[in-house]
């Protein structure tokens, strides 16, 4: 693209992003807001492409727009059912009253001030201070060709390890929100897809392709954009689809196999790290073995990430439609 066209495109994209964001925040209808938010995610992913950050774009599309969107849509529909019953109980209603205009304006000023300050700070940044060169110099020793993967799995592997644990922590936290009597059940609502319906058909058709895509993304991540998170997200999406289509029930939270799957990646990662520590360097990957080690870690991470992400979308274990009051326990606890 020529410079001018590119700038024009960029300008338009920025406008779209801002518009979508504004809509996601300001639209009255909650469902609409979520839709705009998903759209916004897609636009942002485009922006990452424009910034030549393919890995980020992939992640943003898969996680930021995709999974978060699914999560939000699911939440909206569940909230509608949960709050409709209580409308009469609270005079204020489920819709919160508006903030006073003074506070609104003050917040606006504050937010604008911060935004402006950031813009100012951004513009006055010195030319470049990134670590591109340092990464490039050390890339050879990292065992992979994709610099992003090198950073993620090797240079700053400690961050990634913690990050995978954060994901797991979120799942544990989510599950801990279940009601006591629901413990041991399957996460999320039970799905009732019509056999032979669209959902069921998709559920049968898509998984093989999705599975292939996911594995490919992981595999290619060492050299090209892609990696455990992106691949894991695709796999999670596949699994979700299968479960939503009613083809396979979600595993029970008490399932030992499931739990091992959840911790496999982080545990493997730490294991490699500790082995390195015993050998002299915590999380040190000797150049010679770096690539297989990274691939092994990625494999484990992918498994755990996929499982964790899917379950995060499903939510805490609950009985029936999750609407309480306590229903008779139809399923045995274990």
């Amino acid at each position, binding site marked *: 693209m020529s410079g001018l066209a590119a700038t024009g495109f960029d300008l338009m994209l920025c406008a779209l992003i801002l518009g979508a964001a504004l809509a996601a925040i300001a639209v009255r209808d909650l469902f609409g807001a979520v839709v705009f938010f998903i759209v916004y995610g897609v636009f942002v992913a485009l922006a990452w492409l424009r910034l030549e950050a393919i890995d980020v774009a992939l992640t943003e599309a898969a996680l930021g727009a995709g999974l978060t969107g699914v999560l939000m849509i699911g939440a909206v529909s569940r909230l509608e059912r949960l709050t409709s019953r209580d409308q009469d109980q609270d005079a204020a209603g489920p819709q919160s009253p508006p903030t006073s205009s003074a506070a609104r304006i003050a917040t606006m000023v504050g937010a604008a001030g911060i935004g402006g*300050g950031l813009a100012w700070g951004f513009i*006055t940044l*010195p030319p470049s*201070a990134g670590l591109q060169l340092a990464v490039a110099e050390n890339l050879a020793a990292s065992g992979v060709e994709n610099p992003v993967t090198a950073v993620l799995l090797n240079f*700053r592997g400690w961050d990634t390890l*913690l990050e995978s644990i954060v994901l797991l922590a979120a799942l544990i936290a989510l599950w*801990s929100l279940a009601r006591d009597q629901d413990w041991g059940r399957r996460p999320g609502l039970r799905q009732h897809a019509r056999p032979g319906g669209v959902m069921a058909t998709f559920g049968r058709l898509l998984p093989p392709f999705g599975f292939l895509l996911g594995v490919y993304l992981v595999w290619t991540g060492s050299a090209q954009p892609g990696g455990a998170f992106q691949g894991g997200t695709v796999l999670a999406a596949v699994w979700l689809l299968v479960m939503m289509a009613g083809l396979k029930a979600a595993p029970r939270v008490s399932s030992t196999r499931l739990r091992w799957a959840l911790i496999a990646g982080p545990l493997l990662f730490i294991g490699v790290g500790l082995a390195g520590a015993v050998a002299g*360097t915590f999380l040190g990957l000797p150049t010679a073995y770096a690539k297989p080690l990274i691939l092994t870690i990625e494999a484990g991470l992918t498994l755990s990430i996929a499982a964790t992400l899917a379950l995060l979308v499903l939510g805490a274990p609950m009985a029936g439609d999750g609407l309480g009051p306590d229903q008779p326990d139809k399923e045995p606890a*274990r």
Partner: protein
Amino acid sequence: MLAIVALVTLPLVAALMAVVVERRGEWIALLSVIGVVIALSVLMPLVATDGPVDLVIGGWQAPLGITLRADGLALAFAGMAALVMAAVLVSARTLYGASPSEAETRGQWAFWPLALLLWGALNVAFLSRDLFNLYVALELLTVAAVALVAIEGKRESLAAALRYLMFALMGSLAYLLGAALLYAGHGTLDIGLLAARDIGDASGATGSRRASDIMAAGLMTAGLAVKTALFPFHAWLAPAHAGAPAPASAILSALVPKASFVILLRLWFEALPGLTTPALLATLGGLGAAAVFYGSVLALRQNRLKLIIAYSTVAQIGYLFLVFPLAGGDSYAQPWAAGAWTGVIFQALSHGLAKAAMFLCAGVWIIAVGNDRLSGMRGLASATPMTMSAFGIAGVALVALPPSGGFTAKYLMLTAAFASGQTIWAVVLLLGGLLSAAYLYRPLAMAFSRDDDATFAPVPRSLQVAPLLLALAAILLGLGSQAPFSLIQTGRPAAAAEGLE
């Protein structure tokens, strides 16, 4: 080296194992406690004698890689955290320990990994030198902490957890933004490398103050202050800490705010000292002072024990921010700065131990009485003497009476206040101490009142031991403050330790 690795990974590995191994959470936790204690007992003397120890993760030096550094500050807090966790984990056994014969319950499963993850995150937050890594640790901490607040699943605790989440997310975002800006401006996230760039110092490598640096500093300070629950960003704290089950409250109140505070300390005393201005330092100190008074007044107003303790945390956190006017800026290189700095850390440590003890006491009494209303506490002194003493001793530390660690802290800070001529902070310290005595007196006197009709549920003795030991530790911190003192001095940013001679 291995010890540092053990310090940060053991709780995490234990958490992972607690996910998969059913109904053994407490034993796994116990093993990790033992491991961490061993690691600490290796590290502490080493660091105290040889100076800070670095762990360069993956062999990648900053700026490319991440470094963990065990300096005095980090180890002091890690040590305190280990003590508190040990006590809490012992106490939590009655609440969340499973008997092998019964089916696993939600709480029994969720508590252990969450607590252990929180611990791991804490240790990382204390040790890490990388601003982004600290962000990840803070997020891990937040998720685990919020989940612990919500773990009882009651209406109030869910509301408290949500509120906490809002504040915490805001804090994280602000911090993250600041870290991103610093990276964008300086190409590194490492605290030491940032310090080497003399940011904000006109004579330094980067010249005068940059807009991005100023924004970063503002955002990170505000964000960390929110997470530390500095007045007036404290609103989340009391309902959250009071709503959680007692062992969780102990962790939340004693440890969680300390992580962000340590980062704040590192930020201003190590990474960005050149950016300080007298007005900023005075403002931070002023907010701290306001927190002391405000938290105390609200603690006086409460009629539930846990709320009193929680608001006391709001007040006690206020003291910590006196470090900025007393040891920051122009005081940085003054002889009294070392005292102020060390005093504040003592205060944090002492508060951690004492506060954890108090929440555990509250837990004992909730078991005995059924709730934590003050009016129900009559007669508890006779029914649970051990817990009573624990509460009293912890109170001594909190009020900063000798010979507790709190007193050492207060003494050092007072001396700094007088030496620097900033007597106003001395007034804050003293009035704050008196106010804390006032609000702690109420439950104490209530428990001491005789009520011959009161009947209490029996509380296992093992549950009563833990708070007593913690409270005694807070006293020991004062009695044996020589060792921690020299430890804290290790790796202290400014070489002003000789100031107190």
